[in-house]
C-alpha cells in the first residue's frame, strides 16, 4: 500500500462525493436546515393550535327542558379553569339536526329512567373536543352530587371520598428520566441518520461510478485493488460519520431548545437539567457511531457494487436499509439488555449500547466487545468487497450470476501460503463461530460448551489450511524441538508470566480486576474434576490458540512482513482476541512471550508447552488454592511492595536472558524469513 497514492485517491473520492448535490442535501441541508425547522416548526404549530382550540367557544344544547341544564350551566361557569375549554349553552329546537349541520358541537339528551346521553360526532374534531369538555363538566357535577348525598347522611364527605391518601414520588433524577426517553429513541435515530449519510455516497462511488463510466478509467491507474477499495470505503465512512454527527447534534440541539423553552415558560416548575451529565454518554455514542458507520458503509458498498446504475443500486439497498432499521428497534424491546451475547449481534448491539449509555450504564468490557465485533464485521464485509472488486464479471457489468466469491478447492494451487486477507477472513470466521456456536453451546451444555469453543479455535485454522492446500509444515512452524530449547522457552514463559503479574499489579489503580484476571478462572469451571479442567482449560487452548495465533497468523505474517511487525501484530491480535479491556494488557505480555518463543525456536511445540504450563497454573490455583498459596504467596498478594516489584523485575530479566541464551542465537533459528 502506498500512502501517497491512497491520499490522492481518498481526496478524489471525497471531492467527488462532496460535489454531488444529492449527498450535499442529505449531509448538510437536511440536518442543518430541515430538521430544526421541522422540529421547532411543528412544535410551535401544535402549541398554537392547542391554544387556539382552548380559546374557541364550543356550543352545547340540552334537548329536554330539565333542571340539569341549569346545574351544568353553573358548573361550567364556576369551573372554566378546570375544564380548560369555553362552553356555551344555547337553545335549539331540533338538536340532532343542528349537530349534524354544525350549528352546535354537542347536545345532552335525557332518556328513559333519567339516563343522560352526551351526543356528538366523533368524525368531527370540534365535536370531540366539545364532548370531552362536557364530560369533564358532568364528572365535576357527579362529584358534587356524591358529596351532597354523603353530607345529607351526616357523614364527613372528605373522609368518605378519600379514606386513604397516596401519591407517587419519583426518585429518578430529571437527567435519568430524560436519558431513558432519549435512550429509547436515539438508536433508531442514529441508525437512520448513518444510513441516510452512507447510502448515497456508497451508491455514488460504486454503481454511480459504473454508470458514469469512470470505473474503467480508475482501473487504468497504477493502483492496487486494495488502495482503490480502501480509499472509497474511507471516503464514504467519513461522509457517513460526519453527516450522522451533524444530524444528531442538530436534532439534539433542536430538542434541547424545545425542552428548555417549554421549561422556562412553565416558570413555576423549578426544574434544572444538568446537560453536562450526558457528555460522557454523547462522547461514547460518537465513538460507537464511527465504528458503526464503518459497518454500514461496508455493507452498503457490498450491496451497491452489484448494481449497474444508481436506480438499480437504490433497489438493492432498500432491503438492507430495512434490516438495519429493524435491528435498531431492539432498544425499544423492554427486557432486552446488552450482555456478552447480545453484544456480538450486529446492529442490535449498537442499539442496546447507545440505549445503555444514555441510561448511564457504562460497561467498558461490553463496550469493547461491541467495538471489536463491529470492526470484525466491517472487515469481513470489506474482504467480500475486495473479492467482488476482483471479479471482472461484476466490474465489467456482465451480471451477478458468475461471481466467484471464493475459489473452489480443486482450483487451489498446492503448497501455497495464505495472505493477509486469509488471516482476516479466518479470524472473522472464528470470531463469529465463537459468538454464535460457542455461546449457544455454553448456554446449553455449560462447561462442555467451553470445550466446544476451544474445538472451534482448534479446527478453524486446520480446516482453512486444508481447504487452501497450504504448506502446513511451514505455516504452522511444525518442527521438533531440542530439550535445551524447550528449557529456554519455559524460562521465557516464566519471564512473561511474572512480567504480566507486575503489570497487573501496577494497573490495579486503573483496573481493579486486572491482577486477578491473570490467574482466575470463571466460576462455571471451578466445580469440575481436575482432569477435565486440565484437558479443557490447559491442553486444548495450548494446542488450539497456538495453532491459530502462533501458527496460522504468525506463519502468514512472517512470510509477508518484517519479523518485528509479525511479532507485534500477532501479539496484538492475541490480546484483542480475549475480548477484555481489563485482561488485555496482562494477556498481551504473556502473548508476547509465547510469540517470541515460537519466533526464536522456529517451532510451535515450544509455545504450546509454555502455553500449557501457564494455563495449568491457573487450573491448579483454582483447584488447590491453599497449597499454591503456601508455595507461591506472591500470586495472591493484592498489592506488591516496591522491593517485591524490584525482585520480580530481576526475576523477569534473569529468566528472559537465560531463556534467550538457552534457545540459542541465529544459527539455531529455523524460521526462514525470506
Amino acid at each position: 500500500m502506498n500512502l501517497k497514492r491512497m491520499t490522492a485517491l481518498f481526496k478524489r473520492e471525497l471531492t467527488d462525493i462532496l460535489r454531488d448535490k444529492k449527498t450535499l442535501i442529505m449531509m448538510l441541508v437536511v440536518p442543518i436546515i430541515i430538521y430544526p425547522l421541522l422540529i421547532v416548526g411543528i412544535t410551535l404549530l401544535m402549541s398554537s393550535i392547542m391554544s387556539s382550540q382552548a380559546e374557541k367557544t364550543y356550543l352545547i344544547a340540552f334537548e329536554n327542558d330539565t333542571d340539569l341544564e341549569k346545574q351544568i350551566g353553573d358548573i361550567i361557569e364556576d369551573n372554566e379553569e378546570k375544564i380548560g375549554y369555553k362552553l356555551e349553552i344555547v337553545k335549539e329546537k331540533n338538536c340532532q339536526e343542528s349537530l349534524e349541520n354544525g350549528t352546535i358541537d354537542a347536545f345532552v339528551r335525557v332518556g328513559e329512567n333519567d339516563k343522560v346521553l352526551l351526543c356528538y360526532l366523533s368524525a368531527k374534531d370540534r365535536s370531540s373536543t366539545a364532548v370531552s369538555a362536557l364530560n369533564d363538566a358532568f364528572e365535576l357535577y357527579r362529584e358534587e352530587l356524591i358529596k351532597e348525598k354523603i353530607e345529607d347522611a351526616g357523614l364527613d364527605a372528605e373522609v368518605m371520598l378519600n379514606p386513604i391518601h397516596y401519591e407517587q414520588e419519583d426518585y429518578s433524577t430529571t437527567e435519568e428520566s430524560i436519558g431513558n426517553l432519549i435512550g429509547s429513541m436515539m438508536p433508531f435515530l442514529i441508525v437512520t441518520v448513518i444510513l441516510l449519510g452512507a447510502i448515497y455516497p456508497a451508491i455514488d462511488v460504486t454503481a454511480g461510478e459504473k454508470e458514469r463510466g469512470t470505473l474503467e478509467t480508475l482501473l487504468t491507474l497504477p493502483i492496487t485493488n486494495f488502495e482503490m477499495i480502501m480509499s472509497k470505503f474511507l471516503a464514504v465512512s467519513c461522509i457517513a460519520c460526519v453527516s450522522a454527527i451533524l444530524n444528531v447534534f442538530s436534532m439534539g440541539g433542536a430538542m434541547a431548545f424545545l425542552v428548555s423553552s417549554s421549561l422556562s415558560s412553565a416558570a413555576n416548575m423549578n426544574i434544572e437539567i444538568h446537560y453536562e451529565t450526558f457528555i460522557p454518554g454523547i462522547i461514547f455514542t460518537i465513538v460507537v457511531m464511527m465504528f458503526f458507520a464503518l459497518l454500514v458503509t461496508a455493507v452498503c458498498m457490498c450491496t451497491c457494487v452489484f448494481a449497474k446504475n444508481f436506480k438499480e443500486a437504490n433497489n438493492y439497498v432498500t432491503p438492507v436499509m430495512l434490516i438495519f432499521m429493524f435491528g435498531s428497534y431492539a432498544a425499544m424491546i423492554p427486557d432486552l439488555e446488552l450482555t456478552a451475547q447480545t453484544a456480538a449481534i450486529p446492529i442490535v448491539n449498537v442499539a442496546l449500547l447507545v440505549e445503555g449509555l444514555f441510561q448511564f450504564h457504562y460497561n467498558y468490557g461490553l463496550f469493547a466487545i461491541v467495538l471489536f465485533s463491529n470492526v470484525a464485521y466491517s472487515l469481513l464485509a470489506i474482504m467480500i468487497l475486495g473479492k467482488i472488486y476482483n471479479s471482472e464479471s461484476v466490474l465489467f457489468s456482465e451480471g451477478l450470476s458468475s461471481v466467484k466469491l471464493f475459489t473452489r478447492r480443486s482450483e487451489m494451487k498446492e503448497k501455497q501460503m495464505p495472505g493477509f486477507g486469509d488471516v482476516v477472513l479466518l479470524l472473522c470466521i472464528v470470531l463469529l463461530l465463537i459468538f454464535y456456536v460457542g455461546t449457544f453451546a455454553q448456554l446449553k451444555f455449560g462447561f462442555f460448551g467451553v470445550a466446544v469453543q476451544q474445538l472451534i479455535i482448534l479446527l478453524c485454522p486446520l480446516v482453512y489450511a486444508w481447504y487452501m492446500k497450504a504448506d502446513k509444515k511451514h505455516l504452522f512452524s511444525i518442527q521438533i524441538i531440542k530439550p535445551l530449547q524447550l528449557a529456554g522457552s519455559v524460562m521465557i514463559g516464566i519471564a512473561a508470566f511474572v512480567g504480566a503479574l507486575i503489570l497487573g499489579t501496577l494497573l490495579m489503580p486503573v483496573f481493579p480486576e486486572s491482577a486477578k484476571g491473570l490467574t482466575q478462572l470463571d466460576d462455571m469451571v471451578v466445580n469440575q474434576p481436575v482432569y477435565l479442567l486440565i484437558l479443557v482449560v490447559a491442553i486444548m487452548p495450548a494446542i488450539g490458540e497456538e495453532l491459530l495465533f502462533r501458527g496460522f497468523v504468525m506463519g502468514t505474517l512472517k512470510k509477508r512482513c518484517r519479523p518485528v511487525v509479525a511479532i507485534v501484530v500477532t501479539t496484538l491480535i492475541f490480546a484483542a482476541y480475549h475480548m477484555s479491556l481489563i485482561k488485555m494488557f496482562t494477556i498481551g505480555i504473556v502473548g508476547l512471550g509465547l510469540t517470541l518463543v515460537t519466533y526464536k525456536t522456529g517451532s510451535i511445540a515450544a509455545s504450546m508447552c509454555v502455553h500449557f504450563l501457564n494455563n495449568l497454573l491457573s487450573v491448579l490455583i483454582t483447584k488447590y488454592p491453599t497449597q499454591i498459596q503456601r508455595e507461591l504467596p506472591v500470586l495472591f498478594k493484592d498489592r506488591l511492595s516496591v522491593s517485591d516489584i524490584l525482585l520480580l523485575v530481576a526475576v523477569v530479566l534473569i529468566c528472559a536472558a537465560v531463556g534467550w541464551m538457552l534457545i540459542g542465537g541465529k544459527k539455531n533459528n529455523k524460521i526462514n524469513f525470506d
Partner: protein
Amino acid sequence: MIIVDDLCKEFERTVMSKEDEAQTKRLAKSHKKGKLKQKKESFYAVNHVSFQVPQGEILGILGPNGAGKTTLLRMLGALMQPTCGSVAIEDENGNRITDPVQYKKSIGYLSGNTKLYHRMSTREMLYMLAQIYEIDQQTADERIENIAKVLDMHSFMDNRIEKLSTGQTQRASIARCLIHEPDIYIFDEPTLGLDILSADAIVNFMKSQKEAGKTVLYSTHYLEEAQFLCDRVIMIYQGKIVKEGSPEAIMEECGVGNLRDAFHHVMEEVETL
C-alpha cells in the same frame, strides 16, 4: 516494447444444451409447453494470441464486432487478468515489467469506456493523476502547462468536465493519457463517433507520438485510417489472429488495392474454413 505471449481469456456464455435442442424439436412437433434447461459454456474470447510491438511502431488491431478486440486491449492495459499467458513490457535495459502497478505506469489507455470525472475541472484531474502517478509537484506543473499548450486547452482548463463539449472532453481524455508520459499508448476505437476534425486531431496525435519514439496499439473499424496510419496490422476473428503484417504486404497477398477489400477477403477466407 510490449511482448504478448500466448494470451487467453475465457468467458462464460449461456447456451442451450444438446438435449434441449432435441427437446425443443419434440415440443415443437407435439405443441406442448415444457421447461428448457440452459447451461453455461465457457469459450475463449481471446485464444492463444502472441505478438510483439517494438518502440516507435503503430499497430492496428482489426476485426468484426465480438472478435475479442476490446478484451485483448483490456488485458494489454492490465485492466483484466488473462486466463493464461502473459503481457510484459520490456524497457531499454531489457528488464521485463509485469507487476500491474509498475506496468500501468508505462501505459496510456484510452477507450470509449474510460470517461472522465465530471465533477472535477481538467486541471484538478491532472493534478490528482500526477499525485497518483507519483510525479513531483514541479514536474507536474510543467507537464500540465505543456499539455495545455499542445492540446490548446487553456480556455477550458478550469471548467468542470461536465460543462465541456465533446471535442474538448476528447482533448481532456488525451491529456489524461499524457500526464505520466507513458512509453506505450493503447487506444480502443479512439475515433469512434467523433467528427472529422476531432478524429483527425487524434490521428495526428498518434502520428506525433510515433515520431517521438512511442509505441501505439489501437483498434479501429475505419480501415482507410488504419491503412494510412499503421506500420503493421493484425486481424482477429473469434479470438484468434488470422492475419498479421504491414497493410501493404496484406494487400499484396490478397491481391487487392486497399485494406478494406483485403479485410473482406481475409474474413471470407476464415469463414469458409
